[in-house]
């Protein structure tokens, strides 16, 4: 019996194969790190982006409120005080897919970004800075959500 689940799994496989040989026309999707965005934990996401094991650091700051009233819109800001940051990541531990956003830092911008994310439930939020010398630093904060952002 061919179930819907099976069909979906197969088509996903074919899509991956096509993407692998560069047959999918959208260049945008090729550059998007699918493996990292499908990762289920902070360590996996960092690994998928080619980083080492993350180390907690005071030089990385994560700004978020303690309690988010609406999980659909949780303002987050991350910054890193050290020079030589290559990438900043924002992750929500208990979301279906942990990684929320990746920012590639160039010389012309500061390692300081703000955005808003969705959170399904109360969870630890991580800001990760991947440094030019291969170090991976992070800061974390628990954000309590009173109303989840993944339902309807």
């Amino acid at each position, binding site marked *: 019996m061919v179930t819907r689940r099976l069909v979906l799994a197969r088509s996903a496989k074919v899509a991956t194969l096509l993407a692998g040989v560069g047959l999918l026309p959208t260049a*945008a999707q090729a550059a998007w*790190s699918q493996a990292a965005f499908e990762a289920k934990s902070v360590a996996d996401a960092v690994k998928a982006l080619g980083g080492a094991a993350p180390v907690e650091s005071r030089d990385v700051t994560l700004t978020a409120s303690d309690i988010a009233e609406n999980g659909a819109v949780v303002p987050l800001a991350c910054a890193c005080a050290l020079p030589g940051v290559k990438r900043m990541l924002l992750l929500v531990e208990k979301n279906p897919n942990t990684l929320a956003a990746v*920012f590639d*830092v160039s010389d012309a911008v500061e390692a300081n970004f703000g955005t808003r994310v*969705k959170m399904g439930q109360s969870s630890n939020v991580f800001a990760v800075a991947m440094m030019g010398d291969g170090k991976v630093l992070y800061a974390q904060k628990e954000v309590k959500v009173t109303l989840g952002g*993944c339902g309807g």
Partner: protein
Amino acid sequence: MADPMRIRAQAAGDKATVRVLMSHEMETGQRKDSAGKTIPAWFIQEVSAQHNGKPVLDAQWGPAVSKNPFLLFVVKGAKAGDKITVTWVDNKGDKRTDEATVS
């Protein structure tokens, strides 16, 4: 083509703070509609910014970024009158570019 972005870039000293508000559904692919069918994911995957035509920022986003996304970043060396261009591309290949002048 999606609705235009709202971009505000303000110079302070030798840098400029850029605030962008995009208009996008940012559907996660996790929700179900009233008939119980999964609503397909539809979200912005890539955001890039240019300062006077020079690329300064590349970001990759997942579906966890909120609906009608907000982005704040700081461009070094930008002064009043400079042009800031922001482009996004979503997972359907749709894209939008908007420009603002630093004030």
